């Protein structure tokens, strides 16, 4: 079922991790998940810890084994690729991870971190240097960042470096795995704005994975809600966040407190009416 403008399609994907014990059944974390991302679209994926949302991202990136179903990118199968085919795919699919403290190698300078994917794709070192300059400019980091090590940067700045690295070879799709969750509120907002701006200019698609429904709602055209390895609801951002059909989505929505005391009191009352009695 190839839709028009479709870029990435994930169909009935299952992922299981072998457990360490002898003859123990493998632990399946995704039980047949389907979603798709169109060109220039942001697909939001929201779920709680252990829901398997990160695993979907890792399966698309080739970092987690796919044990069933298929993943296609621009109509071509990309699950379980050979190492060589996977490397050529890195031109099209990139990633921004959650933790800006561990996603950059502490011992490698920002300039080297950024030129690495370019050199791997066959850029000459002079072209790479020029491109790195453009990238730093693109994510509003000072040009003299090149020589510095990650520890000289704040969390928000490191996340900008990670975004620049993902952008380096002009990918079609960026998987953003909790890309702003580790950041302070104000920093988070500026990084989100940067991502939107980049999408506006380049037409890149995002698979935006987060536990925070408010952030996903702001960033995404469509949203899928994942619960314990199954997608329970998919729809436009408005449908899912204003009129959720699935009870779990409702719970997720109502349990996130908002910064308006009067409105929050109403939400809390609604939450307790609907869920607290069931919990006991």
């Amino acid at each position, binding site marked *: 079922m190839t839709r*028009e403008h479709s870029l990435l399609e994930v169909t009935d994907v299952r992922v299981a991790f072998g457990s360490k014990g002898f003859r123990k059944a493998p632990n399946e974390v995704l039980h047949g998940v389907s979603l798709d991302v*169109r060109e220039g679209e*942001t697909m939001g994926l929201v779920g*709680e810890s252990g829901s398997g949302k990160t695993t979907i991202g890792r399966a698309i990136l*080739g*970092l987690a084994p796919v044990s069933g179903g298929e993943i296609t990118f621009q109509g071509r199968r990309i699950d379980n690729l050979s190492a060589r085919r996977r*490397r050529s795919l*890195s*031109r099209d699919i*990139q*990633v921004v*991870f959650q933790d800006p*403290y*561990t*996603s*950059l*190698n*502490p011992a490698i300078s920002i300039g080297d971190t950024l030129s*690495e*994917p370019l050199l791997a794709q066959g850029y000459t070192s002079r072209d790479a240097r020029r491109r790195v300059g453009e990238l730093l400019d693109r994510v509003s980091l*000072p040009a003299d960042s090149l*020589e*510095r090590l990650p520890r*000289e*940067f*704040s969390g928000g*700045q490191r996340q900008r470096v*990670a975004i620049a*690295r993902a952008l380096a*070879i002009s990918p079609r799709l960026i998987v953003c795995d909790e890309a702003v969750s580790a950041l*302070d*509120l*104000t920093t988070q*907002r*500026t990084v989100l704005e*940067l991502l939107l701006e980049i999408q506006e200019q380049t*037409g890149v698609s995002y698979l935006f994975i987060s*536990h925070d429904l*408010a952030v996903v*709602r*702001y*960033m*995404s*055209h*469509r949203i899928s809600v994942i619960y314990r390895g199954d997608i329970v609801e998919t729809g*436009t*951002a*408005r449908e899912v966040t*204003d009129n959720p059909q699935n009870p779990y989505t409702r*719970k997720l929505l109502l*349990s996130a*407190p*908002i*910064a308006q*005391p*009067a409105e*929050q009191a109403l939400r*809390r009352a609604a939450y*307790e009416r609907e869920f*607290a009695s069931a919990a006991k």
Partner: protein
Amino acid sequence: MSDPIPDSTAAIALAPKTRQVTAFRRFLSKPLAVGAAVILAIVVLVAVFAPIIAPFDPGASSLKDAFGPASAANPLGFDSAGRDVLSRLIWGAQNTMTGAGIALIVALVLGIPTGLIAGYYGRWFDSISSWIVNLVMSLPAMVVLLASRAILGPTIWVLMIVMGVLVAPSFFRLVRGIVGNVRNELYVDAARVSGLRDWRIIGRHVFIVVRAPIIIQVALVAGVAIGLQAGLEFLGITSGDTPTWGAMLNEAFQNIQRAPMLLLWPGLALGLTSASLVLLASGLSDVLGERGAPAARRRTRRNAAPAIVVPSTSVPAPAERGALLSIRDLAVSYELADGGVREVVHGINLDIAPGEILGLVGESGSGKSQTAFSILGILPEGGSVSRGSVTIQGTEVIGLAEKKHRELRGTVVAYVPQEPMSNLDPSFTIGDQLAEPLRVRLGLSKQAAKARVLELLQMVEIADPARTCAAYPHEISGGMAQRVLIAGAMSCDPDLLVADEPTTALDVTVQAEVLSLLRRLRSDRGIGVLIVTHNLGVVADLCDRVAVMQQGRIVEQGSTEQILVAPEHPYTRQLLGAALDGVDARPEWQPRTTEVSA
């Protein structure tokens, strides 16, 4: 959108390559390590230039000079065969070093690549190589060396190659262990997604991390190799033809009655060299140690100490002090490594009435946790309250003797931490951990404590208290763990609960339950709560009053309604503006009409 990067200027003001410079400087500040390095450098130079420096051929013997005394031409005298001791010592340096070098090179060549591959790829290579390594490590080195001599002959160089094989496992294990950790780091995943080949990832990202530990290990193993080599020679296992320090020791020992001084020189050379290697290794591990560690999850803030004197708070302190908790002009300072002092909380005022919930809001580095720690008297190493007053139910706690403070903690003020899991001891059951303070603090019997624990778990709405009681921390969920910690905090019936980001590590649905629990504890038991959080939604849900903190100061304080609905301070407005609660959902996706090139 305009793009404020608050601390970019601070980062740019730094000189480049700070790290290398400080690592070298830190090394220079260790006199023992520097001394050791100088001695080793001399030994190595002597070894390299032995043919030039040595006044005589080390093998040239003249029997008439046997045991001859020191003279101007032979400052250390002659040995039993009438050979010049100084020349033998100098050549001994070369041969001893070469022997150790051979062993090291063999060990490095065998140990490092296999360790890298086993650590990075794991699977069958790891299983097989680990099995072989365990086998080699279980062999007694001396016995193997003796056997090798019997089979391969008494040449010292061959034996050193065998020794290299025997010490290779220590490199293998070191490298494999570190690489196994690094492989799971996100930056390695990022490099894979970037399209890097495995050998490039191993060469760049992985090797750079194991470099420092390898250097340290080399210094240690070199010491061991020199020692073992000398031992072999001393025992006379080698032919003794090559002048090495061990061979000299052997020869001197045979004549210890006649010329005891002959033992001194090779012994001294060996002792000094080995000791220097050990000292150098420990110095290096101090200096390089943290460099090789995987990314530290530490946020370094480089706010210089404020040069200008600012009014201690923008909110004037109320004259009347809060009955439950009252903070006046509290300042917290940290000692810096260079001897300076940095103030992180610049004189704040706070009050909590009995039964009141106060939210302390701010971003990372604002000093909100430091404030909470000062109330509890648990500031981390190097931090101290530099001025001000904190009273809990009228008792001043600043400067209070630790014993008195300890009595206060638990019974009057209790603490709920951010990371529930890391605050439970994995080796004891939940029941044991909750019962212990009850028995120590309240002097309850084992039975009574157990009954009370069940009661506490019931109070924090845990469905099956008896089962939770018998469970170990890894058997319960994060939300459950936080309930257990709240139960622990409530165990001695405190009046004030200090909660530092108590829901940050939890899922939102679990957070909602924990917030309900805190609200119910307040209404049922009338406890006051200071809740430190960055989440304005949590504040709106739970708090009566809010204090907003920015860079160590409270910029605005008032009722929750007042602060969240009609904020006055620009920073509060900025925080509220950054929240995404009221923002519209993104409109539906439209196919792009024009092609844009990236």
